[in-house]
């Protein structure tokens, strides 16, 4: 019962490179939630997508695997919307200090 489903997502393919970060994020949301979602930069991850804290943690770990980054806890705490998330991912990928 300990195991939470781990999401194996293959990043870095040619198709993935042509997608926008929002497409990738939407695909990962779909995998975590198990159904398609419509998202915009203003979508609130907890309020609009109905995720609980465990869902958010699994989702964040899936994002981290996909982009090969670690999002520090204080950064996660600041993320409320999909736009915030994409911004954080872009910062971390470009090595911009927080």
């Amino acid at each position, binding site marked *: *019962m*300990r*195991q*939470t489903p*781990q999401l194996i997502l293959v990043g870095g393919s040619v198709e993935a490179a042509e997608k926008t970060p929002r497409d990738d994020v939407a695909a990962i949301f779909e995998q975590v939630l198990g159904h398609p979602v419509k998202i915009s930069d203003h979508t609130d991850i907890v309020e609009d997508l109905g995720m*609980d*804290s*465990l869902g958010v*943690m699994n989702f964040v*770990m899936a994002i981290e695997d996909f982009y*090969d*980054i*670690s999002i*520090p*806890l*204080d950064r996660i705490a600041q993320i409320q919307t999909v736009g915030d998330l994409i911004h954080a991912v872009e910062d971390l990928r470009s090595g911009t200090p927080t």
Partner: protein
Amino acid sequence: MTILAKHAAQRLVYDTLHSHGVDVEFDSVLSPTEGMLNGRRTILLGTNNYLGLTFDPDCIEKSVEATRSQGTGTTGSRVANGTYGGHIALERALAKFYGREHAMVFSTGYQANLGVLSTLVGRGDHLLLDADSHASIYDGSRLGGAEVIRFRHNNPDDLYKRLRRLEGAPGDRLIVVEGIYSMLGDTSPLKEIAAVKRETGAYLLVDEAHSLGVLGATGRGLAEAAGVEADVDFIVGTFSKSLGSVGGFCVSDSADFDVLRLVCRPYMFTASLPPGVVASTLEALVKLQAEPELRANLMNNAKRLYDGLCAMGYQTGPQVNPIVAVAMPDQETAVMAWKALLEAGLYLNLAIPPATPSNVCLLRSSISAAHTPKQIDTALALFADVGRQLGLLPADRRRAGGVV
């Protein structure tokens, strides 16, 4: 609307649980394994009293003697008027027990984690926590200002991946894991974690709160059991479980360890442990070492309960340890089963999210060396009855295959 309205969601949970009567107030505690609850004699199966030393006559005697001769409290900080001979003796005894140079005693286990984690790493450093870490570890991580990264529970590969991502970044890395995780009783894969630590040049801290006196040839915990004590830079633990009192500690061989006494705020800005607590803890540490049969009894008892529950068809944690947790399908069933067991004379812990991993609801037991086989068999019989009443177990079969 009050200032507490922001906690409305938690209030709802509290009210729901309260209305089910989950607040437990013992009329009296009779022994490490029995108490009076609502006028009924009740088996205690959820008190973390692993070695059953809370009523040990020698521990009580030492505690009474110290209270009589030194008073009920120190009324001061360790760095002011709160350091007595007993505090120093306890630190020396802990250092000797672990074969380490240094030891430091805190007023609670929670404060030990808060103090150590917030001072070993700070701004510009990196703290790597197992995702299922205890609240005291999470809280300590926030107090110090280090960058906090979670890795997947008990997953050395995920830890390695995250340390690799930090390559080239300045600052120290500190990995934090627990000997036995408090909800499911699973141990950390410490050999593999230690290998990652060696390869990446990180420091390693192990919280042995639930494994001191439980694991290892001499009871030092998981690091001893896994044969990796040399790789563990800091061990943190508590007196409130196998040592039967209250308080926390940290041991280490770090050369400049004593500077912690002046930079560690949860150590400085709180009153030190009362003499009576220090004295019983010292005696309990002597017992832990002198009576290895306590550990053997503990593990035999744990196996009896774990195997019995598995054989009935209950879903338990992944391995036999003195923490034995049974998964419930939902919160309502968990509360009903918990209440039914309590009314039948068995106390254990009701554990619900967010305190539990994977949002699971648990009936959490902790075994003591002091439990008799008969008490455990009584507990098993009650689990069987309640399981059948609530439809958690098949009604017509006494045995269903292992489910784990």
